[in-house]
């Protein structure tokens, strides 16, 4: 990533609320580079500091320490109205005393753009979010999903360099959320604007993002593409928060990008190792349930155990296995028609692991 590709650079930002004994670190030493025209997602559990980080970028709050740059310029101390950054608020925050069109035109009007230009952009935005018919409605006379689209149009109209979206889809029902997800991706590619998107919905994050930053307790644990985050989670929290995972104890024999590992069963296997981890040492590893398969015999199985339970999920089936070396393990198999279930609970089974299915964790 070269300097000129970076839109937002957050470096060493700490945000502390309160003072003395009651001080609370909402963000501790957070650093992240967000690329231009990237769909960047902040993902994490409630209270981890996502909104706080967004508010610092928007300028509603100022960092206790550290700096925030936009296109190479320090903006940490600028007021919100001095930053070419707009926000789609979690609560929409539409102006109740204005119509839909007036809401959308507000930003341009505040920038003192000519009336004709404001009108033209508002019309364009209305058609972009498909709200032409409701342009003259008051914002308390439209549905939640429509309000959400107005909030989006209002934030997009001044054509900011960066658009911040704080869980904009959380209030929508499933179907509308799916539609809006597609809509958002379309807007992002059409406008060329950098999107910083906050969610605690992992599926939403995985399907929409170019890159994801997983946060917990005021820190960023891992940044990467959805595939990297899912396939190669470097920390237990990340593996646990996104998708399901099996956690095992193991012995790391050799380090490097793909090291060798000895599992509790004694089986040796190749594994991806986080950068800079030295061997030999005891480590935790994460294995996704769908990256493992059941074998009926024990030969060339990485792990062995007894089948405890079979849970049918429609699209797939979960097999709960009690491992011979202690602990439990879940294997997931996609269902297909015509395949009958041959296994019974109580059967002795082996578990085979595909290449690169084992991820070594840092903690």
């Amino acid at each position: 990533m070269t300097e000129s590709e970076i839109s937002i650079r957050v470096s060493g930002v700490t945000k502390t609320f309160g003072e003395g004994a009651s001080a609370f670190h909402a963000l501790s030493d957070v650093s992240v580079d967000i690329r231009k025209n990237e769909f960047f997602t902040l993902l994490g559990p409630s209270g981890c500091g996502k909104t706080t980080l967004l508010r610092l970028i928007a300028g509603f709050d100022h960092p206790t320490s550290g700096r925030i740059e936009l296109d190479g310029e320090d903006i940490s101390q600028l007021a919100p109205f001095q930053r070419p950054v707009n926000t789609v608020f979690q609560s929409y925050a539409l102006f109740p005393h204005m119509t839909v069109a007036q809401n959308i035109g507000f930003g341009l009007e505040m920038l003192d753009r000519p009336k004709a230009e404001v009108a033209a952009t508002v019309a364009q935005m209305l058609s972009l979010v498909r709200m032409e018919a409701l342009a003259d409605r008051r914002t308390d006379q439209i549905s939640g999903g429509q309000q959400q689209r107005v909030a989006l149009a209002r934030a997009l109209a001044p054509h900011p360099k960066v658009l911040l979206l704080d869980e904009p889809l959380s209030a929508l029902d499933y179907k509308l959320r799916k539609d809006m997800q597609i809509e958002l991706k379309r807007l992002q590619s059409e406008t060329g604007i950098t999107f910083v998107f906050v969610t605690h919905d992992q599926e939403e994050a995985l399907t929409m993002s170019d890159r994801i930053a997983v946060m917990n307790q005021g820190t960023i644990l891992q940044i990467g593409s959805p595939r990297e985050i899912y396939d190669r989670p470097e920390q237990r929290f990340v593996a646990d928060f996104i998708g399901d995972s099996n956690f095992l104890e193991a012995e790391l024999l050799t380090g490097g990008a793909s090291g060798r590992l000895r599992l509790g069963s004694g089986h040796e296997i190749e594994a991806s190792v986080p950068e800079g981890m030295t061997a030999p040492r005891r480590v935790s590893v994460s294995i996704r349930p769908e990256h493992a398969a059941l074998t009926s015999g024990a030969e060339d199985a990485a792990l062995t155990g007894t089948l405890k339970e079979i849970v049918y999920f429609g699209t797939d089936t979960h097999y709960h296995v009690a491992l011979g070396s202690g602990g439990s393990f879940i294997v997931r198999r996609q269902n297909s028609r015509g395949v009958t279930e041959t296994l019974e609970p109580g059967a002795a089974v082996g578990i085979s692991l595909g290449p690169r299915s084992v991820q070594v964790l840092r903690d």
Partner: protein
Amino acid sequence: MHAPKPSVDASHPAPAPARTGALNLADEARKREVRTSWLLSAPALLVLVTAASGPLLIVLVYSFLAAGDYGGVVWSLSGEGWFKVFLSRDIFDDTVGIADAHLTIFWRSVRLSMLTTLICIALGFPTAWFIATRSRESRNVWLFLITIPFWTNLLIRTFAIMEVIRSEGIVNTVLMTAGVIERPIQMMYTDFAILLGMAYVYLPLMVLPLYAAMERLDFRLIEAAYDLYASRWRVLRRIVVPLVKPGLIAGSILVFIPSLGAYVTPRVLGGGKNMMLGNLIELQFGQGRNWPLGAALSLTLLVIVMVALIFYVRIVQKEAASRE
């Protein structure tokens, strides 16, 4: 203020012209409900109507009667009371002219009341904002402090102001001791003194409704406006003022009406020269011994209040409408 737009009404289908029996029944029930609610509120209405319109009716009747020699009224129809509100007859040659003295007092009353309202807005708006932006617990403390002046009698509060601004009062003494001025500044018995007194007395009536409106304000809207490049001044004008407008109107009404009829404050701080309408009316019922004129003046005051209010509400609403 938030009258539903016709577009909303359009979404409700108009009742079908041919009414069904069920609809008729529902209509009947609704009518009965309305009748019951009228019956239930009848006693309260009766008290309200008699208490409000009774005295008004008496004043109206008195204004068309002749004045008694020692006060009171003589029961004979006369236009003299109303005549004297606006016109005066020369005592020597009986020529009729405009009652300049009265018009001056009308104008002073309206002017001072408007100024008082403006001062109260100027002081009350930031005060209410300050309170509304404190933490929940300290808000109550501030509100409590705001209401403290109400605990004391109006007369005592007015005399307290007099103590501050009279020639030998606190302000003049301090300024003279400090050598800023050589002779005391004449502040008593001026319009300034009346304004000061009225603004002091009526300020809480502006702060409280404004605070109530601001407390309900969604501060996220202000952040949203900041985010959309509105400067602080524009946030105030475009977001805060329109949203607290009901409080602003209520406060203005609460300040303007009693200011216009103020009696104690102009009497104590304005002296006999700087009369306001309230004092003029009192004069007619007291020394002037002209009750019909007093009654006519009272009704004039009522009309001025109503006209002023209608204008004010119109202007505020039009301004809001033109901005939207």
